[in-house]
């Protein structure tokens, strides 16, 4: 039983008929960790943003459905949709520098959403904020609640954002390349923390990344995207043993390995890209017809 069910989702660049997502279908189970991988511009983040209702103005959904806990978001009126998304889903964003409001203290930034989503009173929301900061291993949570974002390090801010995402007990979390903007040394800790929290809360997780290494360690299934088109969707174990799709194989071959750092990297062969492009063109032809 999937908690998030995307069917045939198409997104276009507003004012053109250029598609950014070309009929994407995707399922994430209730406590499942789904990896979403692909090159830059493949539409990984776009899917997460469509689910959370924060697509940029330039993008417009033109077809398909997004079901969250059995309710099709795209048929709901905006106010109800926002409310439902707020209750069931949350985001761990890519860049901790711009994801916290620089002019406001940390405390209200976490507790406000509890007041918004759950209708709690301020005291209760504040207590919960302190508790959840404690859960993400932030020392002296009461001090951090009173701090401004610039007083915290990048890793600390990402911890705050993880806390904030889990605070209202959502059932789905979209993590949009949550470690890309961080120091390599901090990345590992943050990843560990996300999966620790995910396991503890039993949340479904849509993990957007271009790091296949991370996917192999923590995801149960993964979806490979190219040009807004799903190339392959597979169990992680099966995928890393024998990816079915040529593009997946090429992507896997292009991934650096810790076990053999001296090995040359293989760029994705021209022929494979050409084939992927052909698939994209075919999908567009079917869609325009």
């Amino acid at each position, binding site marked *: 039983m999937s908690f998030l069910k995307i069917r045939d989702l198409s997104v276009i660049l507003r004012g053109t008929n250029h598609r950014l997502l070309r009929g994407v279908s995707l399922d994430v189970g209730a406590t499942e960790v789904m990896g979403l991988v692909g090159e830059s511009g493949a539409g990984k983040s776009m899917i997460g*943003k469509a689910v*959370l*209702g*924060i697509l940029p*103005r330039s993008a417009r959904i033109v077809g398909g459905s997004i079901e969250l806990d059995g309710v099709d978001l795209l048929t709901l009126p905006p*106010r109800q949709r*926002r*409310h439902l*998304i*707020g*209750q069931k*889903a*949350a*985001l761990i*964003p*890519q*860049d901790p520098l*711009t*994801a*916290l*409001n*620089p*002019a*406001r203290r940390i405390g209200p*930034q976490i507790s*406000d*959403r509890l007041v*918004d*989503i759950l209708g709690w009173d301020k005291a209760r929301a504040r207590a919960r904020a302190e508790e959840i900061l404690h859960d993400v291993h932030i020392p002296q949570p009461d001090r951090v609640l009173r701090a*401004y974002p*610039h007083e915290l390090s990048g890793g600390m801010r990402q911890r705050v954002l993880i806390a*904030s995402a889990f605070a*209202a007990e959502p059932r789905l979390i979209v993590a949009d390349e949550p470690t890309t903007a961080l120091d390599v040394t901090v990345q590992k800790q943050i990843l560990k923390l996300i999966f620790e929290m995910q396991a503890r809360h039993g949340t479904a997780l849509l993990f957007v990344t271009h790091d296949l290494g991370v996917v192999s360690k923590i995801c149960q299934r993964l979806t490979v995207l190219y040009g807004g088109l799903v190339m392959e969707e597979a169990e992680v174990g099966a995928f890393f043993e024998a990816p079915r799709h040529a593009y997946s194989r090429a992507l896997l071959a292009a991934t650096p390995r810790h076990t053999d750092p001296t090995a040359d990297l293989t760029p994705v062969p021209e022929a494979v890209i050409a084939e992927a492009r052909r698939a994209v063109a075919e999908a567009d032809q079917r869609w325009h017809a």
Partner: protein
Amino acid sequence: MLDGRSLVKRTAGLRLWLSAGWLTALVIGAVFAPWIAPQDPLMQDLFTSRLPPFWMDGAEPGYWLGTDSLGRDVLSRILYGGRVALIVALIAGTATALIGATLGLIAGYYRGWADMVISRLVDIWMAFPPVLFAILLIAVMGTGLTSVVVAIIVIDWTRFARVVRAEAMAQGAMDYVASAQIAGRGRMSTLLTEILPNVLSTITVLLTLEMGIAVIVEAILSFVNLSVSTDDPTWGGMIAEGRLSIHQAWWVLVFPLIALFLTVLSFSQLGEGLKDRFDPVLN
């Protein structure tokens, strides 16, 4: 210790205190003018005409900054003139800020047709030469304090609208705005709690600048006799009169000019100082 931050803080402190000091003195002088002013600002006395300021030969006690060609006391007239200047600065500055910033926030955050209308309006507005526009407005509305204030608002709201729109647009693209929206927050509420606090420091700086500009505009209008009635002393009016007797009595021109200059400078420095002081990143 000479790190950048403390240097910025120290100079910020100095400019803040100097400008706030001058403006406070001016406010006190203007509010308590009837008690502080050594002479009646309107009383003419040809026997005491063109008296020099106190340190020169021929000065009379009680006329600290000298008198004009009609024998009116320059210091007293500057104090009373400060009333008009400050009232205009306060009312016109605040109203301009409120109107311009509101329109800018709406245009920059909601975008769409609201932005189209407001931005085109700003473009058209900015094509008018401001001083001529003011004179035209007052010619239509008649002279008086209200007309001056209205003229300043009508001319200068674009200054706020333009800058605030750009800021609101930049802030609107930030992830924290998206986060607020995921949490189910409405557009209006996002605008007020997420965007506004980040634009407030810009609005403050613009507001103080605008107050300075309002003082200048009032001086220009009273210089060409389009401000309050000619009976009331104004800095612009004093400068206009002093111009006629500059070779015989330079002080009639120079002192109101200094008052004007210091006031406008203080307003702009106050804004900068306040911005540095309340910037959470600098503190």
